[in-house]
């Protein structure tokens, strides 16, 4: 049995079913993220593990014991909240010592552990400060130290970075990962930010409507999305309509231009298809086996990346290229040929595609 195991967990709030038969195994020491938009059940699932919500059905096991009858204060799980939830009446040191005191540890053992934790988060000189004298990032680090001080069986983080600004978010997320790896603690991380989930986790569980849509390593989730929803939710995706030319050879037509998927397509010749392409899988040039000719309609400069919007017939395709100081970026109005490898083609039947609205990189962070 895995270290943490959820079996067919269901949660209803009145007539609303928020989690619908979710099963999951997490190995000891693993860092797993729940990723999904608002209302997908990710936070509710985490809160059921923590004990703040009771599952309507199903079971949750941790290290071989059934958690369902154990109140949250006896589960020995560390929890970090979105809004820090530090005790405002206590100093940093006393916040960290809180759980140790309850565990009945002796005074000198407590102060030694508090010192260790302060060192872990590099905040030794802040021991006597009050939470309101700290920045958001510092407060969240203290919250992390407080949660870890008791050496909990697992660490649960509920959108811990979403109240912080971008720079600190990235730094703290690397810190969290480094601390997690140093301690080898099993960690469940809830976020709606795909970049965060992909960069920090051993595995990502993409959630939707109370179920896990796909679970896998970040590389796997990004490059071989198992469902159209995952494909559109993760990263930016061009979804083009295509017509099957030769199913056996994997050939199709996009706006009359021939594209090869490199493998047979499961569809009848002449049938309609959806062809999905990542913007970064496309490049300008006439070298590749697959070519799409079009006209540049818009160019967005995003710092390290230049995103060009190219009209191919009646359809729009995004192409991402690195900002290269030696190359001039595409100009609006210019004719451009897009080139891509057969492996870049993600093909789906249109009827099997309850596609989420194509989510843009910048927008997905706000869901």
């Amino acid at each position, binding site marked *: 049995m895995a270290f943490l195991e959820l079996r067919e967990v269901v949660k209803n709030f009145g007539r609303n079913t928020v989690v619908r038969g979710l099963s999951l195994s997490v190995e000891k020491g693993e860092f797993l993220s729940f990723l999904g938009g608002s209302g997908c059940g990710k936070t509710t699932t985490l809160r059921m593990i*923590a*004990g*703040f919500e009771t599952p309507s059905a199903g079971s949750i096991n941790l290290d071989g014991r059934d958690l369902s009858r154990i*109140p*949250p*204060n*006896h*589960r*020995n*799980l*560390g*929890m970090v*909240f979105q*809004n*820090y*939830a*530090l*005790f*405002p*009446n206590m100093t940093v040191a006393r916040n960290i010592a*809180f*759980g140790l005191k*309850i*565990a009945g540890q002796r005074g000198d053992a407590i102060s030694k552990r508090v010192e260790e934790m302060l060192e872990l988060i590099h905040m030794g000189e802040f021991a006597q400060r*009050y*939470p*309101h*004298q700290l920045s958001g990032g510092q407060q969240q680090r203290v*919250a992390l130290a*407080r*949660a870890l001080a*008791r050496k909990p069986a697992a660490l*649960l983080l509920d959108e811990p970075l979403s109240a912080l600004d971008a720079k600190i978010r990235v730094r703290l997320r690397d810190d969290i990962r480094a601390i997690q790896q140093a301690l080898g603690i099993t960690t469940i991380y809830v976020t709606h930010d795909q970049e965060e989930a992909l960069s920090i986790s051993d595995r990502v569980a993409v959630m939707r409507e109370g179920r896990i849509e796909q679970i896998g390593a970040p590389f796997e989730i990004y490059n071989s999305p198992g469902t159209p929803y995952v494909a559109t939710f993760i990263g930016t995706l061009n979804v083009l309509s295509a017509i099957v030319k030769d199913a056996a050879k994997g050939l199709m037509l996009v706006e009359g231009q021939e594209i090869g998927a490199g493998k047979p397509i499961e569809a009848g010749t002449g049938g309609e298809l959806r062809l999905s392409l990542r913007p970064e899988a496309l490049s300008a040039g006439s070298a590749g086996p697959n070519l799409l000719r079009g006209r540049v309609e818009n160019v967005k400069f995003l710092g390290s990346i230049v995103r060009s919007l190219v009209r191919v017939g009646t359809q729009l395709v995004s192409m991402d290229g690195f900002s290269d100081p030696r190359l001039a970026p595409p100009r609006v109005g210019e004719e451009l040929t897009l080139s891509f490898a057969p492996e870049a083609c993600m093909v789906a039947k249109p009827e099997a595609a309850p596609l989420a609205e194509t989510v843009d990189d910048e927008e997905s962070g706000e869901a």
Partner: protein
Amino acid sequence: MSAGERRPRRARHGSGIRAGFSWLWILLGLVYFFLPLIATFLFSLRGKKGVLSFVAYQHVFADPQFLRTFGFSLEMAILTVIVGLALIVPTAIWIYLKLPKAKSVIEFFTLLPFVIPPIILAFGLIRTYSRPPFAIVSSPILLVAGYVIISFPYIYKSVDAGLRAMDLRGLTEAAQSLGAGWLTLFFKVIIPNLKTALLSALFLTLAIVIGELTLAVLLAWPAFGPYMALMGRNLAYEPAALAILSFGMTWGAIGLIQAISRGKPGEGSNLGGTH
């Protein structure tokens, strides 16, 4: 033309005049507030003919009835605070955490002591509790119970403001995840963060109960309210002195709340009222 466009020009035009008007209104407000106070104070100093003196204050303090009634009322007020807080604080926390829907019901209850005059309350209490099985009309328990009802809105509003100012659910869950049971949560986390709110509840209740008249008269207790009323009927300068004294005590209490709550983390000026 929208209001937004008009505003800057008007501000530019008459900013000096407007500032002047603001100060005029503040001045009028201060006069309205302080004039009667100063007049009362000056009046209280005229106990001896022809000179200003504190003789009226001396009379007040020399009267054994003053200290006796004040002591009695203070005792009742402290009991009221203890009972009121013991009832209302856990209830409010429970409602915040488990029954947020009941908030509106409690809000309605907090209006009742204002809607139902104390005289009705007093007669209701007398009728209900003067016959078995609850013949306690001659016990101070009934007086304290009545005072708890009268001060309930003030205590609840203070506690409510205090709870609203803190992240009760977050703190509760954080404490629980660190192994805290309800008692630890209550005494180590919630109460310390409610300190200002509890102090404001304490002083509001003291102020209300010490000067309370109707219940004390109808239930026939030698309290401070009836004593003040009696003085007002029979004497001239001493009631003015009493008024100034009680005013001073109230302000002293408010100053004390401010002093204690100053600089406290996470609990700025959430004194009673809305926040």
